[in-house]
């Protein structure tokens, strides 16, 4: 058989991109949006999407079959954004987008971009952040995304001296190749149990009972949190996680510590960067009142690969293969047994 379906499945869209592992690779990938197939919309929506491996489609491209406005008439077009990404090795930073500003507010907002293809929950690395050079090179999760900007929920920049007057963004993988991973620290409170803010969504990375080792350069102030300054060189332990605010609480009393603060932009490039936190195992504990264990989280605790590669990434949206929230999506992956003749 020249072309074989090697895998098939379905999911209900939550309006965010979906990664589908394709262990045999893919030469042809097809998606049906069964929900939209059964209805019509004032603005016709995509109901079937195709991807071909040879000739290889550009990143984010797809053949989209979409309905005519308010009728079942079918149209076909090639889309170049919001389609498929066939990922065979860990993704490198994507093409750069240039913006004009980042506010020095909590939370910071980046703006002035053109035709941003980003989704809520994506990660970006920012650089060329004129006036806010101290954040250049760090990774951030973006939210409230539009075609011209996004919010950096993990960057409380209200204490920064000035806004950035330029910024360049590249989308990167939301996770490192291996989890749990190191994270960039953007704030630490001075409290009996310190609250740590990180620049990226800590979901699937930080968990209650996790031990962490901080690396805080002197340029960020709170060096007392560095492990070699603690009485027993003990890692901090996570006691609570507030993933929605990119925050978690640790069992360290930082009340008397030097305040955590980003270095001034003018100190770059000589000020040591960044403040980071890295996984250091876990501590298994039992709470007899709640009858709960911590440190037995076998989903998040072990060091493991973040992605099973290769995979097919389906972008989300009304005209994208992963659909909109609530859509039922069926996908099929095809693989040729023999290579193609006369490929272009």
């Amino acid at each position, binding site marked *: 058989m020249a072309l074989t379906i090697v895998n098939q499945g379905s999911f209900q869209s939550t309006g965010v991109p979906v990664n589908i592992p394709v262990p045999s690779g893919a030469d042809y990938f097809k998606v049906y949006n069964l929900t939209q197939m059964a209805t019509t919309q004032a603005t016709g929506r995509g109901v079937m999407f195709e991807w071909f491996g040879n000739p290889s489609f550009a990143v984010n491209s797809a053949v989209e079959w979409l309905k005519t406005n308010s009728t079942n008439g079918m149209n076909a077009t090639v889309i170049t954004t919001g389609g498929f990404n066939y990922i065979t090795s860990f993704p490198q930073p994507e093409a750069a987008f240039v913006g004009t500003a980042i506010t020095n507010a909590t939370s910071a907002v980046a703006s002035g971009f053109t035709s941003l293809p980003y989704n809520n929950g994506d990660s970006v*690395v920012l650089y060329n952040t004129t006036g806010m050079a101290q954040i250049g*090179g760090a990774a951030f999760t973006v939210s409230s995304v539009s075609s011209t900007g996004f919010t950096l929920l993990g960057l409380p920049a209200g204490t920064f001296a000035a806004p950035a007057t330029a910024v360049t963004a*590249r989308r990167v993988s939301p996770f490192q190749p291996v989890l749990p991973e190191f994270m960039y620290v953007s704030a630490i409170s001075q409290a009996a149990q310190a609250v740590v803010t990180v620049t990226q969504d800590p979901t699937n990375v930080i968990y209650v009972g996790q031990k962490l*080792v901080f690396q805080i350069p002197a340029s960020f102030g709170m060096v007392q949190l560095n*492990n070699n300054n603690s009485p027993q060189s003990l890692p901090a332990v996570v006691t609570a996680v507030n993933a929605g605010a990119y925050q978690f609480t640790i069992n360290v009393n930082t009340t008397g510590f030097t305040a955590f603060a980003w270095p001034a932009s003018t100190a770059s490039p000589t000020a040591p960067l960044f403040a980071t936190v890295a996984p250091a*195992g876990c501590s298994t504990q039992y709470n007899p009142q709640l009858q709960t264990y911590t440190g037995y989280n076998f989903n998040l605790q072990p060091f493991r690969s973040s992605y099973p590669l290769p995979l097919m990434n389906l972008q989300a949206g009304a005209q994208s293969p992963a659909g909109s929230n609530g859509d039922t999506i069926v996908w099929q992956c095809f693989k040729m047994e*023999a290579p193609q003749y006369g490929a272009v």
Partner: protein
Amino acid sequence: MSTGITNIINMAPELPLQWSENLLSTPMFNLIHSFGCDLHFAEAHLGKTTRMSRYERLSTDGGQLDGSGIDPAPEVVLRTDIDATMEIYAKTIVTNEQITLYENDKVLTKFTALGGQWLREKEDLLMRDLYSSSVSYLNATGGVNGQQPSEISRADVNNIERILLGNDARTMLEVIEAENKFSTAPTRDAFIALASTDITPDLQNVQGVILKNAYPSQEGLRPEEYCSISRFRFFVSSKAAKTPGISQPSGNTVYTIPMYGLEAAAKIEQNSYTATVGYRPPWVVSSVAQNSQLYFKFAIARAITNQNWVSGLKVTQRL
């Protein structure tokens, strides 16, 4: 990566010319990322998660008995658990009979050797990814290229040594003692640093660098080793971790240099599942017995076992 059956369409027979008696070399990158990590073994039939545990040292605070007869408060012993998930990786080559029929050399033998090389290379890259993902790094700032991070400098290397020593990390490589040879210099007992071949010009330019040829003794040195700087001996690979286009302000490539001592990381092998090279004959693979199959499999789990004993630098190029 091209996939499918290897056949005479994508690998045409060599022309009927005289065939040289020796095959040319297959490129292989330096395998440096398993160097210095601890090797552990996972038992079979006990789940796919391996737990490694460490007892933390006791507090040295207090402890004096004042003669009142009151005992000191007992201390609760703390244990840190490090978990790692076993993962299995595989590669296969399906070969059409016309390849083995028409090719001059023994292709299945060569393909088997290629698979063996893949096993080692894949394992090396998986360990590289562990170091690049799960360790805290500091940007080099002692250079002069105007980037954040800058190129590597002596001050940056010394700072990492300070961090590791402050965390009671132990060196891994022994001293190479001085000898009465011109232009050589001894190296101290050292931590390990893993770097990209892209930054070797910058490594040569660091103050106080001792290139490998200037070690007093060459005995036992690995070909991957490049130089010694301060308390670190540097090993280089073309596949060491790097991220293109993210330095401040110019968007240059940023290179990651893990620097570590004893028991910083672990590689776990699976008992009853050693690395396997297998062969499925044509009558099994194909209904007309025309395609045979080679396959290569291995299992690995990996973990940072002591975050205090590993750190590193992010750097950019200057030279």
